[in-house]
C-alpha cells in the first residue's frame, strides 16, 4: 500500500487534468470539484509519505536503448523531495481553493482548472524526478502549462504577449540546460542522479569541463527562476490571473529552478568558479530587482520584483554552497509570498481589478482581514523578527558574511531596499485616504478567499521558528556571528521602513522620479532591440533571397542578355524555376569546392 502512495500523489492531478479536458469542459462546477479533490488527495498522500520514513516507490525501466541510454522512471524519496512535496501540494491546495472565489465568474473556469491540475502534475514530477531526463521532461511541461495559465485571458494582448515571453525566455535557459545534461551524460554515462554522484570523482581532473557543465545546468535555473539576465519574463507574467501569479511565484515554478540547483548540488559544488558565478548572479538579481521595485506602481508588479529579489537570495545561498539556507528561505518564502499575492488578489478583486497602488489607499478599515494578513506577509518579507522571513534571510546573510563579504554588503543593501519598497506599498495601499471611487466603496472578500489567507498568514508567521521548520528540513547550523548579523539587518530594516514612512505618508502621488528604475534598467527595451535586429536581419536576408531573386523575373521580366556579368544577371531575372535551378547549381559547385579543396 505505502509503496503506491507516491504514485498516487503524482498521478492524481494528471487524472484530474485528463478528466476535465476530456469530459468535463462544459460543467464548470464539476471540473473545479475534480481538480480540488485531486490536489487534496495529493496533499494528503504527500503528508503520509512525509510522515513515514520507510517509503520507497518501485521504479521501472522506461527507455532502454541497447545499453546506450537507460532512463528509468523512478521517484526520489529523500528528505528534500518529501519536504517539497508537502510544500508544493499544500500551497497548491490553498491556491486551488482560493481560485474558486477568484475565478468565480470566469468563462474559462474549466480550462483554468484543467491547466492548473496539469501544472500540479508537472511540478510534482519535477520534485520527485530521480533522473535528468524525467526532470527535463517535467521541466518543459511546467513551462508549457505556465504558458497556458499566464495566457489564460488570451484575448488581452498583454496576456498573450506575456505568456509567449515567459515561454520563450525560459526556453533560452533550457537550451543551455539541455546541453549541460547531454555533456554530463556523455562524461558519466548515466542520467540518474544516484548513479552520477559516485562517478563525479572521475571528472575532478577536468575542472574546466565541470565548470562549463555546472554553468550550463545553471542556465536552466536562470530561465525558470528568472535570474538576471533572463528575469524579464516574470514581471510580465503578472498578466495572468492572480492565483496563478501566487502559484508560479510562490512555491512552484520559480522555486523549481532553486530546487533543481539544490538537487544537482553534487555537480555544481565541484566547481568553485561556477559557485562564484552563481552567487554573484543571485546577488545581482537581488539588488537589481529590489531597486526596480522601489519605483513601480502596480501592486502585483511590486510583488513580482520582490519575488525576483528573494529568488536572488536563494540562488546566492546556493552559490555560497549552502543548500540548507537556500531551502529554508524557499520554504518560508513560499508561505509569505503566496500570502502576499493572495492578499493582493483579494484587494484587486474587491477593487474591480484595479492594480494601480495610487488609486488605492485607506483600505485598512475596509478590508480588515486582508489588511492584517497582508501585514503579516509584508513583515515576513522584510525580515522583521519574529516573522519567518527574519530567520531564513538571517541565515543567508550570516552565511554570506562568513564566506564573501562583498556579497554580504550587497545583500544587506538589498534588505534595506526591501524594507523600503514593502513599507511604501503598505503605506500607500492601506493607509491615508482612499484615492478613488472604487477604493471608497470596497468591502471584505468572501470566506473562501479569506480562509486561505488566514491559514497562510499563520504559516508565514510561524514558519521560521526552529520547532516548526525543523520538522521539514535541516536548518543551517547556528553561527557564532549570531548577534552581529541580525543586528545589522534590523538596523537596515528600520532605516528602510523609516525612510519609506517619512517619504510616503499622506502622499497622493510619487515624490521620487527615477527614470532608470521606473524603466527597469531598460532591459526590455534592450532585449527588444537585440531580438528585433537579429531576427529581422536574418529573416530579412532569407526573405530577400527567396523573394527578390526569384520573384524579380516575374515582375520585371526583361531579359535582354548580354555577355559576361550581364548574362549572369539575366539568370537571376529569368524567372522562377530557373532561378531555383541556378541556386541548385551554385549549391553543387560550392559543395564540390568544399569537398575537394577543403
Amino acid at each position, binding site marked *: 500500500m505505502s509503496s503506491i502512495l507516491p504514485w498516487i500523489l503524482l498521478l492524481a492531478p494528471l487524472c484530474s487534468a485528463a478528466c476535465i479536458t476530456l469530459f468535463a469542459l462544459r460543467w464548470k462546477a464539476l471540473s473545479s470539484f475534480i481538480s480540488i479533490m485531486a490536489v487534496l488527495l495529493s496533499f494528503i498522500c504527500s503528508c503520509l509519505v512525509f510522515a513515514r520514513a520507510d517509503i520507497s516507490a518501485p521504479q521501472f525501466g*522506461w*527507455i*532502454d*536503448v*541497447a545499453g*546506450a*541510454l537507460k532512463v528509468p522512471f523512478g521517484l526520489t524519496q529523500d528528505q528534500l523531495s518529501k519536504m517539497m512535496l508537502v510544500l508544493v501540494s499544500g500551497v497548491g491546495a490553498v491556491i486551488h481553493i482560493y481560485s474558486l472565489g477568484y475565478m468565480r465568474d470566469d468563462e474559462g473556469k474549466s480550462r483554468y482548472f484543467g491547466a492548473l491540475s496539469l501544472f500540479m502534475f508537472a511540478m510534482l514530477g519535477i520534485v520527485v524526478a530521480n533522473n535528468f*531526463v524525467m526532470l*527535463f*521532461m517535467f521541466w*518543459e*511541461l511546467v513551462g*508549457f502549462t505556465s504558458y497556458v495559465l499566464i495566457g489564460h485571458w*488570451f484575448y488581452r494582448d498583454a496576456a*498573450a504577449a506575456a505568456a*509567449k515571453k515567459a*515561454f*520563450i525566455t525560459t*526556453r*533560452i535557459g533550457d*537550451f543551455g540546460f*539541455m*546541453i549541460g545534461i*547531454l*555533456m554530463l*551524460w*556523455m562524461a558519466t554515462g548515466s542520467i540518474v542522479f544516484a548513479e552520477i554522484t559516485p562517478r563525479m570523482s572521475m571528472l575532478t581532473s577536468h575542472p574546466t569541463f565541470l565548470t562549463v557543465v555546472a554553468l550550463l545546468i545553471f542556465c536552466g535555473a536562470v530561465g525558470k527562476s528568472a535570474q538576471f539576465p533572463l528575469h524579464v519574463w516574470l514581471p510580465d507574467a503578472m498578466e495572468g490571473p492572480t492565483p496563478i501569479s501566487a502559484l508560479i511565484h510562490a512555491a512552484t515554478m520559480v522555486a523549481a529552478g532553486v530546487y533543481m540547483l539544490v538537487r544537482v548540488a553534487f555537480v555544481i559544488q565541484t566547481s568553485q568558479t561556477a559557485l562564484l558565478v552563481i552567487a554573484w548572479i543571485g546577488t545581482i538579481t537581488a539588488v537589481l530587482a529590489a531597486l526596480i521595485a522601489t519605483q513601480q506602481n502596480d501592486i502585483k508588479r511590486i510583488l513580482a520584483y520582490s519575488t525576483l529579489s528573494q529568488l536572488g537570495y536563494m540562488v546566492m545561498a546556493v552559490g555560497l554552497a549552502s543548500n540548507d539556507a537556500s531551502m529554508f528561505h524557499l520554504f518560508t518564502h513560499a508561505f509569505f509570498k503566496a500570502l502576499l499575492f493572495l492578499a493582493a488578489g483579494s484587494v484587486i478583486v474587491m477593487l474591480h481589478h484595479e492594480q494601480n497602488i495610487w488609486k488605492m489607499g485607506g483600505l485598512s478599515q475596509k478590508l480588515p482581514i486582508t489588511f492584517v494578513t497582508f501585514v503579516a506577509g509584508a513583515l515576513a518579507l522584510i525580515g522583521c523578527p519574529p516573522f519567518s522571513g527574519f530567520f531564513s534571510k538571517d541565515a543567508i546573510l550570516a552565511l554570506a558574511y562568513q564566506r564573501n563579504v562583498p556579497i554580504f554588503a550587497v545583500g544587506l543593501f538589498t534588505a534595506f531596499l526591501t524594507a523600503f519598497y514593502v513599507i511604501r506599498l503598505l503605506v500607500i495601499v492601506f493607509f491615508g485616504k482612499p484615492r478613488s471611487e472604487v477604493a471608497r466603496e470596497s468591502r471584505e472578500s468572501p470566506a473562501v478567499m479569506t480562509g486561505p489567507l488566514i491559514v497562510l498568514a499563520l504559516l508565514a508567521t510561524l514558519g521560521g521558528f526552529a520547532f516548526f521548520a525543523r520538522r521539514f528540513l535541516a536548518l543551517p547550523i547556528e553561527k557564532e556571528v549570531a548577534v552581529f548579523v541580525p543586528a545589522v539587518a534590523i538596523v537596515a530594516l528600520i532605516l528602510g521602513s523609516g525612510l519609506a514612512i517619512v517619504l510616503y505618508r499622506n502622499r497622493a502621488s510619487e515624490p521620487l522620479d527615477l527614470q532608470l528604475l521606473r524603466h527597469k534598467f531598460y532591459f526590455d527595451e534592450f532585449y527588444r532591440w537585440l531580438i528585433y535586429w537579429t*531576427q529581422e536581419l*536574418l*529573416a530579412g536576408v*532569407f*526573405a530577400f533571397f*527567396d523573394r527578390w531573386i526569384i520573384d524579380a523575373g516575374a515582375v520585371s521580366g526583361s531579359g535582354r542578355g548580354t555577355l559576361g556579368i550581364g548574362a549572369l544577371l539575366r539568370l537571376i531575372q529569368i524567372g522562377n*524555376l530557373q532561378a*531555383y*535551378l541556378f*541556386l*541548385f547549381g*551554385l*549549391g*553543387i559547385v560550392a*559543395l*564540390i569546392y*568544399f*569537398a*575537394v579543396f*577543403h
Partner: protein
Amino acid sequence: MSYLELLKLASTEAVVVVTALVVLAIGLTTRREATGVTVATAQGDQNVGGSSSARTNAICSFIAALGLAIAIGTALMLPRKATLFSGMLVITPLTSLFKIICMALAFFAVLLTKSEKSLRHPGEYLAILLLATVGLMLLVSSEELLMIFIGLELLGLSLYVMVAFDKTDVRSAEAGLKYFLFGSTSSAFTLFGISLIYGMSGITSLAAISEKLATVSVQPLLAVGIVMTLIGFAFKIAAAPFHLWAPDAYQGAPIPSAAFIASGSKVASFVVLGKIVLVGFAPLHGDAAWHAMVAGWSPVLAALAALSILVGNFVALAQSNLRRLLAYSAVAHAGYTLIGLVAGDREGFSAALFYTTTYAITLVGAFGVVALVRRETAGDDFSNFSGLISRSPMLAGCMSIFMLSLAGIPPLAGFFGKFYLFSVALRADAGHGLLWLVAVALFGSLISLYYYLIVLKVIFVDEPSLAIASSPDHLSPDLLQRIAVAVLAAVVLFLGLMPDALAAGLLAAMP
C-alpha cells in the same frame, strides 16, 4: 536459384505490383461507365458521375489498402537474411522493418486518398501510388548502385505524376513540373556521380565499392563523384540548397501526394543514403569536427545539415500557408536527421532512422488534418485553421500533438528523437567535435518553436473568420479518416512515451 524461390523473396513487391495492376484495371473499367452516364444525362447533372466516381474511389482504396495489408503480412514472413544477385536485392531485419514502415505510410496515404474529391481518376492515382511504394521498397532493400538508381527513378517518376495529378488545379501541374525538372536534374547528377564512382572502383555493389575505396586516397575526381552521388538524395530529402522545389510541391500537389513525398519518400531516401555513405563510402568518412575537418562525405553532409536547419527554420517563420510551413519545416527536419548520419556508426544511423520515421508518421497525420480542413473550408492557409478548436476539438487536439512533437516538446516522439540524435552526435567524437552542429540544431529548434506555436495559436485562440464559420459546405465527417488521424496521433504519443518500442528494434536490426 529457381524462380519460385526468387518469387518467395520478392513476394512483398510482387503483391504490391499485382494490387497496383488490379486497382488500375478496376479504375479504368468503372471510370468508362461513369463517363458514359454523365454524358447520357446531359451536362448539368454532375451528381451521377460524381457519386459513381466516389464509389470507384472507395472500391479502389479498399483494394489498395487490402493489398498493402497482405503485402505487410508477406513481409513479416520473409526470411531473416538473404542476398540476391550480389546485393541487388537484400533481405535483412532492417530492410524488412522499413518495407513494413513504408507500406504502412502508403496505407495511410491511401486512406487520405479516399476522401480526396479532386482526383478524377482514383484508380490510376492509387496504382501509381502503389508503384511508388514498390520504388520505396526497392530502394530500401538494395545494396547495389544500379538497383538503387532504378528504385530512385521508379519512385521519382511515380511521384512526379502524383504531384501533377490534380487536373482541376493549375498549380498542381506547375508543382509537378518543378518537381520533375528538379528531380530529373538531380538524378542526372547522381547518375554522373555513380559513373565516376564506378570508374574509380570498377564495381557497383556497395560492399565491394567500400573494399576498393579503402585502398585509394581521396582524389578530386572521386570527391566530385561522391558529392554528385549525394545530390540526388539531398534533393529527395529536401536538404538546403536543394530544397527549393519542396514548398511549391507541397503546396501545389494533391494532399496524399504531398503526404507521401514528405513521409515515405523521405524515410526510404534516408535509409538508402545511410547505406550508401555508411557502407559504400565508409572508408571516406572524413571528419566534420569544427576545428579538424577532414575531407570526406561527413563534412559535406554536415554543411548540408547546418544550412538546412538555418534556412528551413528562418524561412518557415515568414509563412502563412500551412503546407508551405510544413515544407520549410521539413527542410529543417532533414537537417536534424542528417546529423545522425554525420555522427556515423550504427547508433547514429539508428538515431537518424528513428527520427525520420517518427517525423514521417507525424507529417502524415498533420497532412491528414490539413486534408480534412481543406475539404471543409477549401483552403489551407492559416485563416482556414482559425478557431479549429471550436469546429472540431478532436482534430485540433491531434494537430497540437503533431505540432508539439515537431517542435520537440516532451513527452512526444519528436522530443525523444531529437534527444537521441543530439546525444549520439555529441558522443560520436571524443573531443565533442560535433558540438557546433548540435548547437546549430538546438538553436534551430528554438526558432522553430515560434512558428509551431503560431499554428497552435491560430487553432486555439483566433476566432474563425466569418466566411468559414458560415460555410455551407460542412460535409459529413469522414469517420475513417478521422480515426486514421487519431491513430497517428496516438502513435506519436506512444513513441514518445515508449521510444524503446521502435528505437531498440532499430538498433537491433542494424547490421
